């Protein structure tokens, strides 16, 4: 693997973009990664990274150029050290799509590290979620103590950090949140070029939400300004991942092009960006190790080892003047030469499933299956479960079974829930043996809620947020250390530890659990019934009290009756 490990950088570095001479302390890089997924779908990952060589925390900075003012002020005012917000519609299917570049749980996820000088973290957290909910038009204001946890091991700071006192961390997921256009528009507004130029012109809402998976995120973190790391820079990464089902939208063909996916093509780079690139994953998919062929032919090819796989990328540099020389727009496309043998999907090394089992509305069981398909390496994984208080977990029923034997976790952090105050938090470090399935089960009892605590449409069920798996997965191929500033953005969000493993964070499916739900119309029914009974009683009483009764004397009848009886007598019928 030594030769394969050589990550060739064949990219022609284009001349730096527009450079206002004085005090250019912020820089924008934009990048689009197009990767065909194992089952034939297409994933497009946009990343926009604004790096600002200024210390937001000092409070003195208030003059913004590329960095959005709204977020900058938030970070400075509330003492945020690191902020990660993801809004996701759909679920990343790891088994069919492989390891995600950046996965996020369905719904809204927010995790924030605060500065050590923040005295009341809970207050700052509440205020932060309210402001973010205003900025992104999302219901983040529903984040409160009942869905906020402080994980101890799963979420380490991704940026520069001195000391990781986890009391400064807050994590919350709203699995019920629906993501749509109103969340995309403010996200786009944070980009320096908006959606007017550069890669962002492809972000048309009606295409992006016509997809199998849509996840948009904002990551803010402090990073080292240079190799010596004496000063701090701030980095804002806006990422957007979308998965298109090319098969169903392309009349049975898996061919794709930018225009077919986004109904737009690229015409220019954002004039403010110092780098603007499109990467297309053209790694061989068949036995013959033949590279895929993308048109127009790329100017350069980039090879890298990403998540334990050797990958080859075609690179289109939008800032290179030669790109738009021949044609006015760039419409990257890929045609399959022969029908792809889609029978065997490569299984990712780490993947997981979760489900609820049991019957009735009293008890149930949450089961999580974690797969390690590595042929010979065992590795540990950190599992984080957040369960709302209304599912009362029985901690003594927690069992972890691997290959028929009990697997004792080397670290457990369990924080039981308090009714209406905080959720259950369960964090475990579990060793996954090579080529194994680990089953984790825990039983729970469903609580009865007060009638005002039910959300609208309670019979839909209650969501339990995804559990989080964080692991350093051993790589089959050794990786080489890269310079973060030079490497493509999609490889550089998570810090790489060493050459032999790579970091993966996976989210399982969110769960939908039914709780015993009362018949909400019952009080009204009772009122109706009671009222009717009362009204009927009242009616008869009223009649009894107000009617006058006469004794009716029998009379011989009137003239008509006598006439009728005469006729009846003639006919031989008995008289009336």
């Amino acid at each position, binding site marked *: 693997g030594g030769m394969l490990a050589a990550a060739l950088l064949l990219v022609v570095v284009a001349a730096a973009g*527009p*450079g*206002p*001479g*004085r005090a250019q302390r912020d820089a924008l890089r934009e990048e689009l990664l197009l990767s065909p997924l194992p089952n034939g779908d297409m994933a497009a990952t946009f990343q926009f990274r604004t790096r600002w060589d200024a210390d937001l925390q000092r409070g003195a900075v*208030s*003059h*913004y*150029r*590329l960095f*959005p*003012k*709204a977020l900058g*002020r*938030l970070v400075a*005012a*509330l003492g945020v050290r690191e902020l990660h917000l993801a809004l996701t519609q759909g679920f990343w299917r790891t088994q069919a799509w492989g390891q995600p570049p950046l996965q996020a749980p369905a719904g809204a996820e927010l995790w924030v590290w605060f500065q050590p000088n923040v005295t009341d973290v809970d207050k700052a957290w509440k205020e932060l979620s309210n*402001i973010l909910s*205003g*900025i992104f038009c999302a219901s983040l204001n529903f984040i409160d103590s009942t869905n906020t946890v402080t994980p101890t091991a799963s979420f380490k700071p991704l940026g520069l950090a001195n000391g990781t006192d986890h009391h400064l961390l807050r994590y919350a997921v709203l699995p019920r949140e629906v993501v749509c256009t109103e969340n995309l528009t403010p996200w786009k*507004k944070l980009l*320096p*070029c*908006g959606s*007017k*130029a550069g890669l962002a012109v492809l972000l048309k809402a009606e295409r992006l939400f016509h997809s199998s998976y849509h996840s948009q995120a904002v990551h803010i973190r402090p990073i080292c300004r240079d190799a010596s790391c004496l000063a701090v820079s701030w980095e804002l990464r806006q990422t957007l991942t979308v998965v298109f089902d090319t098969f169903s939208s392309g009349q049975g063909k898996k061919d794709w092009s930018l225009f077919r996916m986004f109904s737009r093509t690229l015409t*220019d780079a954002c*004039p*403010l960006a110092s780098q603007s690139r499109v990467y297309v994953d053209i790694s061989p998919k068949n036995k013959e190790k033949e590279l895929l062929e993308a048109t127009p032919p790329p100017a350069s090819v980039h090879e890298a080892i990403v998540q334990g796989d050797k990958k080859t990328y075609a690179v289109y540099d939008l800032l290179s003047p030669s790109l738009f020389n021949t044609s006015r727009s760039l419409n990257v496309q890929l045609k399959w030469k022969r029908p792809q043998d889609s029978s065997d999907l490569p299984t990712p090394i780490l993947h997981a499933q979760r489900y609820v089992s049991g019957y009735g509305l009293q008890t149930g069981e949450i089961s999580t299956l974690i797969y390690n398909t590595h042929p010979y390496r065992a590795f540990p994984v950190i599992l984080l479960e957040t369960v709302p208080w209304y599912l009362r977990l029985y901690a003594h029923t927690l069992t972890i079974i691997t290959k028929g034997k009990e697997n004792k976790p080397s670290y457990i952090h369990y924080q039981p829930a308090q009714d209406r105050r905080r959720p259950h938090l369960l964090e475990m470090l579990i060793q996954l043996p090579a080529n194994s399935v680990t089953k984790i089960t825990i039983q729970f009892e469903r609580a009865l809620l007060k009638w005002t605590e039910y959300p609208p449409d309670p019979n839909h069920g209650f969501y339990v947020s995804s559990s989080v798996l964080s692991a350093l997965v051993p790589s089959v191929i050794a990786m080489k250390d890269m310079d973060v500033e030079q490497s493509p953005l999609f490889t550089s969000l998570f810090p790489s530890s060493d050459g032999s493993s790579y970091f993966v964070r996976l989210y399982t499916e969110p769960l939908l659990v039914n709780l015993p739900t009362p018949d909400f119309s019952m009080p*009204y029914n009772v*009122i*109706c019934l*009671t*009222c*009717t009974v*009362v*009204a*009927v009683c*009242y*009616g008869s009483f*009223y*009649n009894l009290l*107000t009617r006058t009764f006469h004794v009716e004397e029998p009379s011989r009848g009137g003239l008509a009756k006598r006439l009728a009886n005469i006729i009846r007598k003639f006919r031989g019928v008995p008289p009336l």
Partner: protein
Amino acid sequence: GAQLQLAVPVAVVFAPGSVPGDLPRPLPFRDVQEMEISVNLRAGITSRHQMLYRSTTAQEEAALGAATAREADAALRLLQDTSLGSLTLYVIPETSSLLPQGISIYVGKHRSALVRAGGGLAALRARLQQLTQVMSFTASSIAAALSDRVPDSQLGPDARRHLKSSLGYEITFSLLNPDPKSHAVDWDIEDAVSRYVQPVLDKLSLVANFSVDSQILYYAVLGVTPRFDKESSSFLLSAHSLPHVINPVEARLGSSAASLYPVLNFLLYVPERSHSPLYIQDKDGAPVSTNAFHSPRWGGIMIYNVEAPASPQASLPLHVDVDMVRVMEVFLAQLRLLFGLSREELPPEFLVESLGNEGLADWELDRLLWAHTVENIATVSTTLTSLAQLLDKIGNIVIKDDVASEVYRAVAAVQSAVAELATGHLHAAFQASKEAVTSSERAFFDPSLLHLLYFPDDQKFAIYIPLFLPMAVPILLSLAKIVREARQRKKDPTKMD
């Protein structure tokens, strides 16, 4: 209604040789001039000028012996009562050479002025009264402060321009570059703010908290397509289209999510290359010399044209360094205008000391404080009245103890503000009025008031309809029967038995 008294302590100091002959009493003596300010409110407002007439001390006399008015002003400053709102007016002999020819009143940087003697006491009094109003408040400035509560007919066209009184303001400078492909615009806003804006804000820090920030917005366009004028080969924005300019830009400006203070926006717009040069036309069609306009209570916009490059082949983007002196001149003038501190409407015999670096004279600060104090008191009374009206209307709102105590605190503070105003302690009055605003708003916007707001009576009635309806049926039927029988009886009275 209640009476609001605004007392201005004024010391009138006569230099030797300037004492009018017809003084009623020998110096020193006190006198009060009361004046009703009618703003057509339930509460009447009276201004009381508490005049103290005296002659100069030896030190003041020495200071007045300076060569120029400016030097005299600087020297006198050390000898004055420096409390906010108080004024010291020096009357100098008619023949004094301190003031230039044709100028009879000199207003200094601080809380004093020089007045040329002349005519009798009545003429002097009229002049002093006018001067005192300029340096403290006039009926129209008080009316402008109460502009939301005064009928429209009483207000001048500019009355609603002033910013409402608030505990803080956020000032945002935005550079709009709609065409980053052609123009790489750079501005040294950091330096410009510290050099030109900060001195003014330091003075104003007594009035409110200020925060300043700036941003650059790309691809932000105005909402109006300018008209091309062949004669001048330039693009024109006419005055009547200006109201439509702001809306699309405003969506990009971003609201201040982190605070609740009103935002003052100052936009510098560099027109795109295809629309350059761009000029604003006033109502008569003449170009506006500053190429800027302001929007009341919102901020200002200035258009900054980039000179076309000498050769058309010059490589794009064109690098532009904004001339911040020119820009800040306009923005500062707009800032003063928005705070109601413009100096336009003074008569010609007034000479007002130019400010240089300080940006704001002490007496201008006082003017602002007078207006804001009155406005704060009016705001508190409106807020508390609305709260009371709300409680009258919806009886089942629960007022918690902390809300009640905020209301009491607001009432106490507003009473002390009124008392301080009546005794001429402007600073204390302003602080109390600020406190009253804070407390009253906290009470009015307390979330606990909202709990029962949406439980209307018609819903309760709807629940009991199943009871009322069946019960009503026999009653209505028998009523109908009674009516029918009564009618029958009237028609056919003989059948009665």
